[in-house]
């Protein structure tokens, strides 16, 4: 049974904040809240949520992943929609959970039902809610980086750009090789740091060549990686999650500072 408000017929959405946003960049969570509420949703934030389990999944630890996934499904399955400000975490919930439970009959259907309600934030706004325009203003030249999981698991590339186009004062600049990975890859960035560094250095060159004021993406992991590299190099390019711009919440400091 879906959880619905008694006093209205607004769309009921549960926000899957993602662990990185929860811990490092709460502004993105509040931006997501605002965008969803502006679009007429009634947003719930289950406070028992922790992480989607992707670190365990990618480390080959199926048992822990399954236990974490069961917990996530139990917390969120009652809602009509589950929305995450991350292509990577939404991909985990939507694509990988059904895979994780495909041979466990008592969970398979539950996982598939849950997965069918999961959406990444920008694609939920455009493709499900039909949002064409956001109420935000920013005089800035921005470049949007396509995060891999969002791009290839969930086909997200048009949606954030469309929404950005509606921000007053914004110009968009495409990056060269915008579909190439930034080199983050979760634990990869730490376990194979030299290779990761080479990949993110290449990415930083492409970003600097495009000369944006602001670099955006839909995934905090990639953003922390690219911001971390740009700031180490002394670049003045600021880095934010796309939701911050769409929600007009760019007052605080950018990721890794100015």
């Amino acid at each position, binding site marked *: 049974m879906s959880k619905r408000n008694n006093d209205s017929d607004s769309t009921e959405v549960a926000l899957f904040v993602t662990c990185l946003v929860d811990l490092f960049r709460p502004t993105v*969570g509040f931006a997501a809240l605002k965008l969803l509420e502006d679009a007429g949703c009634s947003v719930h934030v289950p406070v028992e949520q922790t992480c989607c389990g992707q670190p365990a999944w990618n480390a080959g630890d199926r048992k822990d992943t399954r236990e974490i996934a069961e*917990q996530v499904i139990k917390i969120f399955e009652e809602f009509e929609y589950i929305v995450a400000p991350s292509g990577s975490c939404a991909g985990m919930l939507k694509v990988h959970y059904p895979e994780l439970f495909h041979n466990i009959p008592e969970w398979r259907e539950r996982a598939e039902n849950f997965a069918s309600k999961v959406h990444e934030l920008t694609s939920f706004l455009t493709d499900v809610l039909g949002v064409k325009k956001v109420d935000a203003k920013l005089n800035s030249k921005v470049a949007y980086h396509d995060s891999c999981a969002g791009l290839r698991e969930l086909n997200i590339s048009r949606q954030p750009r469309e929404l950005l186009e509606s921000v007053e004062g914004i110009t968009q600049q495409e990056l060269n090789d915008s579909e190439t990975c930034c080199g983050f890859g979760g634990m*990869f960035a730490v376990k194979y740091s030299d290779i990761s560094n080479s*990949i993110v250095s290449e990415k930083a060159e492409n970003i600097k060549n495009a000369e944006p004021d602001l670099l955006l993406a839909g995934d905090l992991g990639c953003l922390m990686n690219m911001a971390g590299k740009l700031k180490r190099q002394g670049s003045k390019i600021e880095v934010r999650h796309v939701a911050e711009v769409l929600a007009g919440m760019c007052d605080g400091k950018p990721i890794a500072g100015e």
Partner: protein
Amino acid sequence: MKISSPEFKNNACNALDDNQLQGALRHVRKNFVKKRADARRDLPEFDALRDSARAIKDHTLAHLDLYLEHYEKKVIESGGKVHWATNAAEARGIIMDICRKSNARTVTKGKSMITEEISLNEFLEANEIQPVETDLGEYIIQLRGENPSHIIAPAVHLNMDQIRDEFRKAHTHLPAERSMDEPETLLREARQILRDKFLSADVGITGANFLVAETGSSLIVTNEGNGDLTQIIPRIHVVVASIEKIVPTLEDMAQITRVLARSATGQETTVYSTLSTGPKRKTDEDGPEEYHVVLLDNGRSSMLGTEFSEMLRCIRCGACMNHCPVYQAIGGHAYGWVYPGPMGSVLTPTLIGIDKAGHLPNASTFCGRCEAVCPMHIPLPKMMRFWREREFEQHLSAPSHRRNLTLWAWFAKHPSLYRFVTSIGMRILAIWGGSAKRINWLPMAGGWTKFRVLPAPEGPTFIRQYQRAKRNAR
């Protein structure tokens, strides 16, 4: 071939420090990727062809025994012979027997990854038979005593200067002061030298891109025509191929070749596509007198029906490595064995063991681009994850990583404690980050902070702030 996959990390660091190699890899990043994208754009039915190619291979693999038997029957009917080899040693033994019976001294070779897999050249040399690689790239790396760094462009790690130096060193019978400025000059020189080798070889060994059950034919695709000369001129032609190269019909073969060249080099088709069926017939003017096929299993049949069976669809186009950010950064040699890039990261653990090849499926960002460009839709990241699972189950991953993971997972499963611990942790990090909002160095996170700053948390966690706001609103 010496296995250096366990030293992957070291290999990778050396590759990253090698300026010449980094220059050569730029070619992969720019040209291969662009050419494939252009080829795909120019063929509207490309994606439909991919689906069809996958279906053909899936069907074939589901009836592999049937098609292999039919293939053998057809080879015999055309006057050839099929030798079944369970492993590399058996395959080498069979090839050696064929060479011995004909008192072979020199063997010309078409480009073949499968002969790399069975370390054929080293073996022939040890038995006083001289193998001569006739693909230009293979010829160059043979002179240098190297292995291929890419499955379709074996010398992609080299630049013109290195090739010129190698030729000057090797071709001492030519005038030392000759001009070698143009690629064409180098090509002409190699061609001249190889021409004599083609004519004097006793045995010609090629791989096969496809084996056709319908006719008992093998197909090789090349851009230099060297394969034709390798298989037509010597008295004996030996085809070495692994069992999954089989397709049912010529029509199936033709369909898959349409995605093969486009995915590999962006060509509509390779310059040469050469079928060979049995030895020379009475009415033929040329061709080999003997035609042998060495069919190698080497662990492939044991992949059938497992989570790795889809890997057997691979047609060795190289698109996965061309598009892989890790391959693009470090090149092929760092992977430490025959097959580099994503396809190698799945296949190599099967062939040399996950204990030795453990780094390979781990050294991936899971960006998924390999799967996206694979003409056969092979879910490479998924299979790399399967290897990580095997590794985890067998306790082969580093104990420190396991401990950290288990600890983190325990907290993730206990929300209140997770909330408590992360709140304290983030508060400390936020203070550490100061007003600059960044952390330049952090103990236990050296892999991160060596190369990047760590963005500091903004302050209290989202959930804490959200709970507070809710309370205040009441």
